[in-house]
């Protein structure tokens, strides 16, 4: 007799028990799917968060620029380079840096000028979304600037106030100009908070008399599913002698901190799987041992041990499949909802950045083939493993013992 047919009849006959077992397995499957996609989401977010505020995923400089940032260490011919970089599969934002003195009222402070093109910058970082007050830079206000949080406090500046900037232009002359504060950032990272002075690239060039070239090109993959290493290689091919570094090399301590967090996440995932394993093991042991009496009778009726084992495996497999379908549909649906909406912690977290790492207060899941397939595969494998011991026990039991076993 076909073991599957017999198995499904058995399951149907004990429908309440089968339902309870299958639901427990299904729930375990749902939890695994939710957990895997939430953890995946967290891993993706940690990389994203490390790069989205300011660093970008890759940066291109003149060699040694990072050790000794110099106004004259310019990447020349940036327009052709930007085009080539786009061809290599990244969004790229050119940046200019200089140091100057900002003064307002009776206060003054050293600032780091950051000249950017807002449209391109928005393709690489989300800093424009981190304003505490006012508006981000736009071409309509050529002399509008956006300041870091602590800098604005030091200079006692509010949105709409004017600020005097004085510094040295590239020709050695003393430059000075008036700007209007257009926005003030939230906490980003200490150096930006204390000295970040964002301005349009055109205003930067006018102030510093740097007519061509940029200091830095920050990049982000256009397609996040391509590996960063591969993109970095392609960017390096295009970039020639320029130095291309990924965010890990740019922020080694941060990268290590995140790696630590990622290892912890894997550790948690492993423990969750163990918990799921225990639930399935539990369910399977119960569903066989509770019915050992029944199997004894079957054996008395002439079923061989192999057939009993086959039957038990068939039952387990059928339940696992139903549970998987249930988990996939309900768990998948929930995970997709979490991917869209996320879990919002913004009430609990007021500060949304830490040492240059954006902390997205919305925890989103990331649903992918493997965040669905691994939990289901684990569910089925675990079920089959869990049933080995009870199946052997049931197959080898003497009918007399089994009937007494009540």
């Amino acid at each position: 007799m076909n073991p599957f047919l017999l198995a499904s009849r058995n399951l149907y006959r004990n429908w309440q028990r089968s339902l309870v077992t299958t639901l427990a397995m299904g729930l375990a499957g749902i939890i695994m799917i939710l957990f895997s996609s939430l953890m995946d989401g967290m891993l993706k977010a940690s990389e994203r968060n490390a790069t989205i505020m300011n660093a970008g995923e890759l940066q291109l400089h003149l060699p040694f620029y990072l050790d000794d940032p110099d106004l004259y260490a310019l990447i020349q011919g940036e327009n052709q380079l930007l085009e080539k970089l786009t061809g290599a599969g990244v969004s790229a934002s050119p940046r200019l840096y200089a140091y100057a003195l900002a003064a307002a009222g009776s206060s003054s402070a050293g600032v780091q000028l950051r000249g950017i093109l807002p449209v391109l910058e928005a393709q690489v970082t989300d800093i424009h979304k981190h304003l505490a007050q006012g508006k981000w830079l736009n071409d309509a206000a050529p002399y509008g600037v956006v300041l870091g949080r602590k800098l604005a406090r030091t200079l006692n500046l509010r949105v709409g106030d004017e600020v005097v900037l004085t510094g040295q232009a590239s020709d050695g002359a003393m430059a000075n100009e008036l700007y209007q504060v257009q926005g003030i950032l939230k906490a980003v990272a200490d150096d930006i908070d204390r000295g970040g002075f964002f301005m349009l690239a055109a205003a930067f060039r006018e102030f510093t008399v740097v007519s061509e070239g940029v200091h830095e090109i920050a990049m982000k993959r256009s397609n996040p599913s391509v590996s960063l290493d591969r993109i970095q290689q392609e960017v390096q091919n295009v970039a020639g002698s320029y130095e291309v570094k990924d965010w890990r090399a740019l922020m080694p301590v941060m990268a290590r901190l995140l790696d630590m967090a990622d290892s912890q996440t894997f550790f948690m995932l492993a423990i969750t799987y163990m918990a799921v394993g225990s639930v399935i093991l539990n369910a399977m042991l119960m569903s066989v041992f509770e019915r050992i009496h029944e199997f004894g009778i079957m054996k008395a009726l002439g079923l061989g041990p192999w057939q009993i084992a086959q039957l038990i495996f068939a039952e387990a497999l059928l339940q696992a499949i139903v549970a998987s379908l249930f988990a996939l549909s309900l768990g998948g649906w929930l995970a997709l909802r979490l991917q869209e909406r996320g879990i919002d912690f913004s009430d609990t977290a007021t500060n949304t950045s830490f040492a240059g790492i954006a902390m997205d207060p919305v925890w989103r899941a990331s649903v992918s083939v493997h965040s669905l397939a691994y939990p289901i595969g684990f569910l089925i494998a675990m079920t089959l493993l869990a049933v080995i011991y009870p199946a052997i026990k049931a197959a080898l039991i003497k009918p007399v013992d089994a009937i007494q076993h009540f």
Partner: protein
Amino acid sequence: MNLVGLAWKNLWRRKRRTSITATSIGFGVFIAVTFSGMGDYSYTNMINTSAKMGLGHISIQAPGYMQSPSLDKQIHHVNDIQQRLATLNGVEDSYVRIQGQAMFASAHKSVGGAFLAIDVNSERAEHNLFIRSLVEGEIFIKRWRGANETLSGIVIGQGMAKKLKLRLGKKLVYTTTDKHGDIVNGMARVSGIFATGVKDIDNSVTLLPIQTLRETIGYSADEASVVAVMIKDQRYTDKLLKLVQLRVSELGRNETEVLSWRETQSEVAGMIRLDRSSNQVSQILIGVLIAAGVLNTLLMSVLERTREFGVMMALGMAPLSLFALVVVESVWLALMGLSVGVLVTVPWYLYMNRVGIDLSGSIGDDYSAGGVLIDPVLRIYLYPETILMILFTVLMLTLLSGLYPAWRAGRNPPIDSLKAM
């Protein structure tokens, strides 16, 4: 009828089932301990590390110093303050420090940076990140001038040493503004070099002996910019904050502001809040999972005993008693599960607390420098109330999971159940 005894017997009639269920409850305890333990440990670690960067868990400063730290804002009578705090229960130690910005110059170059002036005799390495990460030399050099001990030297970061081309014993001139805002300078020889692994810190932070610096900037022996208070248990920060405020205000003659790490390190506080919430989500998911496992076994055992319950009802047992019986069974199960949980978890907890899992292998071995700030070993630690919380939650989960099966048992009509076999 003795329900408690009957329930106990019932459980032992089905040894295997009971042990499976108890094991899965125990496993729930294990997981809860691991998850909460990771949280408790890492938050405490982060809070303590940030406290060690200079401002303590609680810091006493001049009003407005937090917004714009400068040397013209100082607090007075720091020795009185320290003395008053020493007797406060829960305070481990307090340190008097002067923090400020300065230019540091060698014959080759000058760089801007910050100094932390400390009283090295009272500082303990475990409360001072920089002392702990010393890689060369010593903190300061002690000399006896008559009966008085004097300290000289300056401890600088590895990055600054490289920039200024300095080695141990070489001199460095620092320039800062004194309490009146005038430019003053002092000379010190490098007595030690530290490496925390964080570039910004290694490039710009220095340690100076507090007495020498006081002379340079015109502070009296009773003045400083901060009194940093380290407390024994960071969870009592808020309670101690009030007590510290009270003690300081009793002095009466001092304009001060008492702040907690939540204010002085608001970024760390924000990050912990966020991480704690996401940890809670994971714990809820795990809780649901464990509850599902327990529900499964209890429900199965009720379904399977339909006939038994039918017989009992036919013998005159009230449905409510049956309900109570199953509830008591789940209480017994919960207690057994907790015992199993404690048995399994204690060795695991001890191992994870003392040894931990070294994750540095999976991260790369370039850890020597960053080791101070980033602990590559995954450890767990639990506060006593977290332990109680876990035990209580697991107990409640088990009881809640038992309610539906108990209701099923109580509702069984006797005729149907007798036919069931």
